[in-house]
């Protein structure tokens, strides 16, 4: 167990001490949330928008933590030889992947706590303990499909091309899935594409947890998400195998 615990601890510390990762990852979602969720909406929409966008930015937070923390880092570690050193060492087989995923979950959790604190203390929202718990479980689980997407980027991108590729993925994923602005505010054409994207299903479940959806479709969203997770994990595994089998 010790290598796993140390691997997670040092992966987390290493990213936390890296300002070019930690600052945007931890600060952008709360900043966006304050602006779009708390300042912009006025009058009777305030509470609804604050809730809807709380769901959106919690998901956005873990999406970015996974894409940058896993995608960009593994692309660099693979491309510049560090992964090779780890692979040639007697490192336990799954500690590398576990540490990357756990770190994305931890960053997602910190972002979520910040957002919830803003929602409660600045936005005047009331959150039940059960809602907080469910939201935490949801975003932690969402780190797996998002992380798989990150590993896929890490397998195919070079250290130089990874950041561009991640920006090209993260922003459309966030916008089309309704993470930045509520899905209702998007054009109909865009809303039709959303169901093929994993973050859309995550945010729909998050909205149901926060009482912004009836919850009737939660089971369907979770099932689709599970299917997409299996597909993404499979694709990531194939891509990594192809790159390490030389």
């Amino acid at each position, binding site marked *: 167990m010790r290598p796993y615990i*140390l691997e997670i601890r*040092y992966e987390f510390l*290493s*990213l936390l001490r*890296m300002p070019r990762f930690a600052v945007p990852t931890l600060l952008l979602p709360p900043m966006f949330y304050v602006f779009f969720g708390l300042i912009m909406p006025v009058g009777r929409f305030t509470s609804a928008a604050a809730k809807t966008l709380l769901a959106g930015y919690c998901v956005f937070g873990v999406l970015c933590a996974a894409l940058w923390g896993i995608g960009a880092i593994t692309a660099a570690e693979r491309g510049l*030889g*560090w992964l*090779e050193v780890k692979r*040639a060492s*007697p490192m336990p087989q799954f500690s590398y992947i576990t540490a990357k995923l756990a770190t994305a979950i931890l960053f997602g959790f910190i972002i979520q706590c910040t957002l919830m604190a803003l929602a409660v203390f600045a936005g005047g929202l009331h959150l039940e303990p059960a809602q907080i718990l469910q939201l935490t479980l949801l975003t932690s689980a969402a780190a797996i499909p998002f992380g798989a997407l990150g590993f896929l980027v890490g397998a195919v991108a070079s250290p130089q091309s990874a950041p561009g590729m991640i920006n090209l993925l993260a922003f459309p994923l966030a916008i089309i899935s309704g993470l930045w602005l509520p899905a209702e505010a998007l054009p109909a054409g865009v809303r039709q594409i959303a169901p093929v994207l994993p973050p859309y299903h995550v945010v729909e479940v998050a909205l149901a947890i926060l009482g912004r959806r009836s919850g009737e479709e939660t089971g369907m969203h979770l099932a689709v998400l599970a299917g997409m997770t299996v597909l993404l994990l499979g694709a990531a595994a194939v891509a990594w195998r192809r790159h390490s089998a030389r």
Partner: protein
Amino acid sequence: MVIAELRDTTKRFGAITALDNFNLTIQRGQILALLGRNGAGKTTAVRCLLGLVTPDSGVARVFGRDPREQRARTHMGIMLQVGRVPESLRVREHINLFSSYYPKPMALSEVIEAAGLHGIENRQFGALSGGQQQRVLFGLAICGNPDLLILDEPTAGLDVESRRALWQHVRAYATRGGSVLLTTHYLEEADALADRVVLIHNGRTHADGSAQEIKSRTGQRSLRCVTALPPAAVAALQEVDQVEPFGAGLQILTKNPDRVLAQLFPLDPALHGIEINTPGLEQAFLEMTA
């Protein structure tokens, strides 16, 4: 006792044959230098021994096992050429993590001592100089108390002082009973460290023996002198293998310097500054891989 070997190993990358029926055995307690130019196949040989690449044909064995097995890897410490090491982790943290991969690691204080990391153990990796960073990577290689240390170009890009400092630590590890395989294109490094040198060229073994044996394998000597004769005229003399400008004069490679001098004096009575040297490993290396 053989602890690691490559047997009839061939590995191709597209049209390039990196290893061509290559054989290598490492005995317990030995410091073996795999010496070759860039692209000679050194790194591929190491990567086969580490199980990072699978040979097209032939066998790689480490402590009697497939190198991809966890149990083979716990016997080895490795130092590879690496472009990125997590920079924001402290030296102590890097060592802690790698130590946790091994069943019987050294204590942190021992690693710090054995790799010369005093005073930098709490610094972040990215804040270290090139020489310090290489010593940290060496520390990661030895922290698991391995029986075999595999160092791929451990001193590439280091200044002379840092290089010598690292050699000292490699020697100290070997005196404690460890075996070492190191690849290098620095002849001085092979000469200074290794008790056996394997010369690899185009993926094949070109020579195998002690540094002394390899040096003496070539009968060539270098004759240096200052002369008014043009190099082309000197090159035309009997027994002259090669002529090149050297300082104010010429360097002549020959197996028979006496005979060459006997021809030179009548042509240039003012010939002076004569110096005859037996070749170093460098000369032998250049000659054998020409």
